[in-house]
């Protein structure tokens, strides 16, 4: 059956063993890479072009590598083949694993990213603390025995270590939360400001945790 002529459809591009960036773009635009639509892909437009403009064009080996990665099945089976309408209409393969961003396994931790995830981690810790708060209130409402039991658990060395950690988590989430509220007013987004506020959050959280425990010890007498 004759393929219906579509002027918007890119012409089929043959695959060679030493593909050029243009050939790779053609393969992507023809839907041969599976997860792309059979149409001009704006994302592929700068492919090769940027490097050529910069005076460092991709070597044939690098383009061939990119082509192999994109076609996945490898050039050997497709060598010399011409993309057909059947290839173009191939359903995107859901099983294909694409790299995810950000690649946290290889990213260098930064103050910004560490504080970001710590805000989430401390939030989860404080959720558990909220449950303890309710247990503590119920114990207080139940009577002196129940209250004494909970207070005893908190006063144990394990309880004190957990409470110390919870205190730091609380102040870190509090200070980090205030930093977020400031950001919500569209203030302090300059890189320098972000680092200054980040270190202020760290310093204030440590200072407030120490202050809280010193005051508590002073109250105990």
């Amino acid at each position, binding site marked *: 059956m004759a393929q219906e002529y579509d002027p918007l459809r890119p012409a089929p591009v043959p695959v060679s063993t030493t593909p050029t960036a243009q050939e790779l773009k053609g393969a992507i635009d023809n839907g041969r890479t599976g997860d792309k639509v059979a149409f001009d892909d704006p994302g592929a437009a700068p492919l090769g072009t940027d490097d050529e403009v910069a005076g460092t064009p991709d070597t044939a080996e690098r383009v061939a590598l990119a082509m192999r990665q994109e076609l996945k099945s490898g050039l050997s089976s497709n060598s010399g083949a011409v993309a057909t309408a059947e290839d173009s209409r191939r359903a995107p393969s859901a099983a294909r694993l694409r790299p995810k961003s950000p690649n946290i396994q290889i990213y260098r931790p930064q103050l910004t990213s560490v504080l970001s995830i710590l805000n*989430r981690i401390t*939030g*989860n810790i*404080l*959720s558990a603390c*909220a*449950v303890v*708060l*309710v247990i503590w*209130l*119920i114990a*207080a*409402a139940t009577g*002196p025995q129940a*209250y*004494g039991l909970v207070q005893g658990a908190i006063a144990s060395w394990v309880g004190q270590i957990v409470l110390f950690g919870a*205190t730091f988590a*609380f102040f870190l989430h*509090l200070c980090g*939360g*205030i930093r*977020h*509220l400031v950001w*919500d007013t569209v203030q302090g987004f300059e890189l320098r400001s972000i680092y200054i506020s980040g270190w202020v959050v760290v310093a204030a959280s440590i200072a407030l945790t120490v202050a*809280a425990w010193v*005051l*508590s*010890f002073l*109250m*105990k*007498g």
Partner: protein
Amino acid sequence: MRSPLARAIGLGSAKEGVREWWAERVSAVALVPLTLWFAASIIAHTGSDYATFIVWMRTPLATTLMILLLIALFHHTALGLQVVIEDYVHSGAKFAAVMAVRLGCFALATAGVAATLHIAFIG
């Protein structure tokens, strides 16, 4: 009758969630003074016995602020945990997890308020 452009304007990729986003901020603002009051009160009561603690809890100010703390805290907790679930759970378990968090937070807040009122009015 609305054009596709009119429908699209103002909609981010998530399409909805401004209400939750705003509620998380409002509860956060409420929690700043409430949690600081709670922390200061607990520090002040270090070493206090049960009777002293109950006398303090029965003051109208402590009862009121404790109830406000519980409402703001569990509202904030539910919203925060829901965001975490929506970010990491993509299977059918997401719906069940969000439901469990919502119901759990509502139950815990109610239990906390009931305990506070019990202390205030019954002892």
